[in-house]
């Protein structure tokens, strides 16, 4: 399967009764990349992931993961053999010990990596004979991560993988993620930690109230996105509809604040023609995120 896109979705939509959890989601994830998926709780991150993995069926739209149709149960089943998933809820079978869980999970994955299993048992200091109900929350997360990284999977889907972990272990997990991607795996992880996404992700996707509001490379956000502030006597006169690259416009008194994705020179020229004084500032991913979500335009 030399398909360059490991995940692709077309118009993915999911309704729960009256509530639209996910609306018209279309995006792609390239092989070997690390993509960070940001969004508030309840924005639709976990729903999207569950639909991708065949645990839920979309109301409309579809997609492919590792070349397999996500809506077809048989195809989805075959796909899951090559996917490692860490759920938002890190609970595991409480009647099994860590060792039993490993033996159980191993049985389903012919690509299982015993070397990684041993390495992580050691690094995470997991007690093999302890039943998971007696593990702390952090150790449970670490167990879930071991079960994922040792699968030898082509695609790692991690829902908040560092939640509840101390900084030392968090660092180990990020290293493992980078290493896995370096070995050819594709990583799709959701997180509340913007810094983590900035640190290891190639691309960032932001979802807000079920809709994709940002799909860009992390470097582009730092290198090309800019905040342009213009002071204008009559800001309502400033018309930017025809200008390329304008992502968001906020007006506060006489200050027009624009987040631009590209064409910064063009925007500046346009504003100067309209008689504004202009300054250009960098904009962080955090700012782009906060301005993308929570508020209606």
């Amino acid at each position, binding site marked *: 399967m030399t398909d360059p896109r490991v995940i692709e979705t077309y118009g993915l939509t999911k309704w729960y009764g009256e509530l639209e959890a996910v609306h018209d989601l279309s995006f792609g994830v390239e092989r070997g990349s690390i993509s960070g998926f940001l969004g508030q709780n309840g924005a639709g991150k976990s729903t999207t992931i*569950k639909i991708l*993995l*065949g*645990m*839920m*069926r979309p109301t409309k739209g579809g997609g492919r993961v590792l070349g397999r149709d996500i809506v*077809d*149960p*048989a195809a989805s*089943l*075959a796909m*899951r*053999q090559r*996917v490692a*998933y860490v*759920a*938002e*809820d890190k*609970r*595991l*079978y*409480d*009647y*099994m010990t860590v060792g*039993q869980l490993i*033996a*159980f*999970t191993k*049985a*389903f*994955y*012919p690509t299982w990596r015993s070397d990684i299993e041993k390495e992580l048992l050691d690094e995470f200091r997991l007690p093999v004979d302890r039943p998971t109900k007696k593990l702390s929350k952090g150790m449970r997360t670490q167990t*879930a991560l071991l079960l994922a990284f040792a699968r030898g999977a082509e695609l790692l889907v991690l829902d908040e993988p560092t939640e509840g972990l101390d900084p030392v272990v968090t660092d180990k997990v990020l290293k493992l993620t980078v290493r896995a991607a370096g070995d050819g795996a594709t990583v799709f992880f959701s997180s509340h930690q913007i810094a983590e996404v900035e640190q290891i992700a190639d691309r960032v996707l932001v979802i807000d109230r079920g809709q994709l509001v940002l799909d860009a490379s992390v470097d582009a956000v730092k290198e090309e996105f800019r905040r342009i502030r213009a002071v204008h006597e009559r800001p309502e006169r400033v018309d930017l509809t025809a200008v390329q690259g304008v992502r968001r416009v906020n007006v506060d008194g006489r200050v027009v604040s624009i987040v631009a994705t590209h064409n910064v020179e063009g925007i500046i020229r346009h504003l100067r023609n309209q008689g504004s004084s202009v300054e250009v500032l960098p904009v962080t991913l955090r700012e782009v995120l906060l301005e993308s979500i929570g508020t209606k335009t």
Partner: protein
Amino acid sequence: MIPMAKAGADVTILPAQVGRAAWRALTFKAWLETRTRFVTGLIAVIGLCAFFTLIHDRMIAQWQRDLVEHPEWNNPRWFFRALTDYPFFIWHFLYQDMLQKVCVVFAVLLGIGGLSREAAHGTVDFTLSLPVGRLAWLASRGLVAAVEVVVLGVAAVITLLVCSGIANAAYPPLHAILHVALLVGGSFAFLAASLWISAIVEGEHAPVLVGLSAIGLFYFVLQPYTNGASAPAVVRVIDIARVMAGRPDVGRADEAGLGLLVGLLVGGGLVADAFRRSVRRDY
């Protein structure tokens, strides 16, 4: 049994490559989940069978004393037969009554579980992300529970024969085997109902309560009606409790055969519906 599904439906049990190791893992998981219930049931069954076989002599002796000392007591018909007919004694107390109820209760308990329960425990996401079809989840659970029910039956037979031997009572093995087989067969129908209840009722404890209430309803509300003289003949066929008890004599199981078949067909239908629901559902 379960009809062949059309192309694309969730029929593929497991990708062929991992087949055997995966089945072992699934059955091991189902075993771990039901282990405690099974052992409890085993103790209950063995204890019950041992108790009645070993207590038989003393009970009979007491009854005979009662006959002499209290001639005014009104004794039911079965009493006199039980005094002298040992297999009938076993039939009356165990196959018709206590052993039957114990088997049914444990068949229901062993069938409780499944994806809804995992949802209540927060493990359903992990479970469903594994490359295992929903049919495989249901089938592995059902098969393990069915085997456990059979083992309970085997334990009953062995205990009855061994303890009868200890008590020096002659007990034809065929009597035990046939009647326990009827109990096991009927229990399968209850197991199927339990699998179905697990697919319908959400939560951690609710399915157990519903299951046990259903048993209670069956034995304490429905049964007295079907046993009464006013009940039409067809009811006797589907009265699974009567079917499971069978006739007190060895080898006469004509009614039982048909009733058991009906019970198993209904059970099969319930399991199929449980599977259908599980495939349609979002977790």
